[in-house]
């Protein structure tokens, strides 16, 4: 009797409890059952499963993780400045999320394929994407900027959650490749000797509410696809707190789909690396999907068009700054004698060099000709496109010899309103 009835866990107070718990987690201690190895004090803790993974990280690798986090933070500062100076239309900052991104990205292997959202600049760095190319999209000269086939790092996606389904489909493709390779089918294109691969799909706590995320998890589970869902819970979807998206920790959702969900301290690069490495192994070994929720925080604004003072307290941001992912790894490296002053000075110098490179190359990012858009709309020739292009050429030729500047009348109209807001 009563076994089918919902437990008090699900009575009406649960949502308030969750909001309170989240508020506490934001302001003070992290919630229980969160994998953490390196605490804000820079001391390494123990975890029965993940310490094994962490202990494989050599001092050199740890220094590399630090250098990557510092580089991407410096890049973020530079890109924000470039946006303020009108060189970029928009910038999506990542400060605060370096450990979640560098830790997970570095845990992946070259054969793994990554589907980012639009904030994964740190992951891009770990996949050797030229960071200047990453800026093309934000400068408004490209809707991509790099060739995903070169790095196995997919294009950014602005329609939230859409890529989570692509990730699962890609993972289903990997499964088929493996079967084809095993059967020795000729011309399958699958390399029999190739290492097993997995897929990571990044998305945010806000995007977790989109139907596509649900459907992607259903598909992943139904077909046991080798995919790792990596949710960066940075606590805010623009102005909306996580409590509006979910009343349980997001990692708990995996249970409902029938695969493991792990909440990890997203500001602890060692734990993120360990958990992601475990999850990718799990997926590559054919054991199916994993959901990782990286519990982290978006320290700055959502984008350069956003004003966080309208919806959140400065104290919250301060509390999170105390959990800074770089500061805690620095403490650890220093206290263990794994890095000296010269190392940190070198990291800083490298950051300045990267920033200078970014500044230099951003100016040079070529503005395309609209003819490339005509050329790229279809893979094969299309009569309507040809007709419109011909019209455009004839029309443009009509201005030949004229001043390239806009005519006064045209200026009057375009100057009427040029709103700058949004995203």
């Amino acid at each position, binding site marked *: 009797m009563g076994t089918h009835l919902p437990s008090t866990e699900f009575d009406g107070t649960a949502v308030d409890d969750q909001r309170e718990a989240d508020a506490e987690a934001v302001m003070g201690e992290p919630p229980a059952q969160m994998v953490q190895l390196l605490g804000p004090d820079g001391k390494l803790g123990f975890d029965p499963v993940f310490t094994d993974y962490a202990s494989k990280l050599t001092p050199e690798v740890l220094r590399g993780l630090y250098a990557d986090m510092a580089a991407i933070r410096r890049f973020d500062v530079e890109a924000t400045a470039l946006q303020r100076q009108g060189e970029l*239309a*928009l910038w999506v900052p990542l400060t605060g999320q370096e450990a979640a991104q560098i830790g997970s990205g570095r845990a992946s292997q070259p054969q793994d394929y990554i589907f980012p959202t639009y904030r994964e600049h740190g992951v891009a760095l770990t996949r050797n994407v030229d960071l200047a190319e990453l800026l093309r*999209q*934000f*400068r*408004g*000269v*490209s*809707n991509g900027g790099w060739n995903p086939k070169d790095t196995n790092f997919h294009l950014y996606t*602005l*329609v*939230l*959650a859409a890529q989570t389904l692509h990730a699962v489909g890609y993972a289903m493709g990997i499964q088929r490749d493996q079967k084809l390779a095993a059967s020795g089918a000729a011309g399958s294109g699958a390399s029999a000797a190739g290492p097993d691969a997995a897929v990571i799909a990044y998305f945010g706590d*806000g*995007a977790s*509410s*989109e*139907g*596509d995320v649900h459907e992607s998890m259903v598909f992943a589970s139904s077909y046991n696809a080798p995919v790792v869902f990596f949710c960066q819970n940075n606590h805010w*979807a*623009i*102005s*909306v707190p996580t409590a*509006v*998206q979910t009343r349980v920790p997001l990692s708990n959702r995996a249970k409902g789909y029938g695969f493991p969900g792990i909440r990890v301290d997203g500001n602890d690069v060692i734990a993120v690396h360990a958990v992601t490495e475990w999850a990718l192994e799990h997926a590559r070994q054919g054991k199916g999907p994993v959901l990782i929720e990286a519990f982290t925080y978006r320290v700055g604004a959502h984008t350069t*068009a*956003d*004003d966080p003072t*309208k*919806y959140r307290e400065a104290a919250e941001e301060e509390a999170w700054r105390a959990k800074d992912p770089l500061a805690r790894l620095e403490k650890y490296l220093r206290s263990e004698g794994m890095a000296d002053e010269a190392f940190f000075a070198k990291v800083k110098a490298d950051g300045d060099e990267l920033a200078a490179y970014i500044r230099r190359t951003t100016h040079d990012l070529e*503005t*395309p*000709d*609209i003819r490339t*858009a*005509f050329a*790229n*709309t279809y893979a094969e020739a*299309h009569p*309507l*496109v040809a007709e*419109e292009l011909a019209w*455009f050429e004839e*029309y443009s030729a*009509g*201005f030949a010899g004229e001043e390239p500047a806009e*005519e006064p*009348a*045209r200026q*009057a*109209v*375009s100057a*009427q*309103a*040029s*709103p*700058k*807001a*949004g*995203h």
Partner: protein
Amino acid sequence: MTTMTIAKAINEGLRAALTDNPKSLLMGEDIGALGGVYRVTDGLIGEFGPDRVVDTPLAESGIIGTAIGLALRGYTPVCEIQFDGFVFPGFNQITTQLAKIHARSNGNLTVPVVVRIPYGGGIGSIEHHSESPEALFAHTAGLRIITPSNPHDAYWMIQQAVQCQDPVIVFEPKRRYWLKGEVDVAAPGPAEDPFKAHVLRAGTEATIVAYGPLVPVALAAANAAEEDGHSLEVIDLRSISPIDFDTVTASVQKTGRLIVAHEAPTFGGIGGEIAARISERAFHSLEAPVIRVGGFHMPYPVAKVEEDYLPDIDRILEALDRALSY
């Protein structure tokens, strides 16, 4: 009369709608404390509280679908879709459900849901933030679609949309949000019927039909043509579904030439519908084929080349040259 921007006019219109109808409510992503990414709902949560101004989960299908349920229960939800390119996760609910429930229930049910969508380009934005998907919705029967081009219309049309018993999609021309103009908050005047087109400028040689963001461009083109000695009539369509063909037909019967301008791609767009109807209705009045000016058959291009994509004064004048050459 007071002067305000289109964004402010919609804000005031929503305030009036929330005050007039206690069963109306706003729903959308970031419309509460933030006041929407364009600040169109600024201050409303403070006045009406979180039950009337609802920050929703990030889920467009969820927003439209639950709005339908609320409407079935007697409420009038006004949904904000953050950007044109993000309406598509909710497209299924809009086209397969919202548009059809009245017909499917043999007229027994009404779903007076309003969907506000900032649309169009010209603001130097990134992908999915500059699209004009109105034709995709106009093709679906059961929806009404309006698009204001000035603050006075914006103020009244949003309120009329809330009062309408049918689902109404309000396409808001985002690059004109900061366009200022006079608003008569006491009376709608000619804006009484939101589905009626307005003749903004009388002329004799050709008619330009435009809507939303291109209305100021059409007016400027008509001014430029006047300097060259040509007299153009300019019509602000205001309603995309239904279209006020009577006003357009009457104008073409007078001028004999028609140019339709919109930002959306020409192919399969609203301009084609207008061209076809006017050929049917006013064939003997036409001195030239109806000429469409619009976007190209390509995904909305990157910001740095959008000037080449967006119909401007020159493109309208080029069309005028062609129309006059017949």
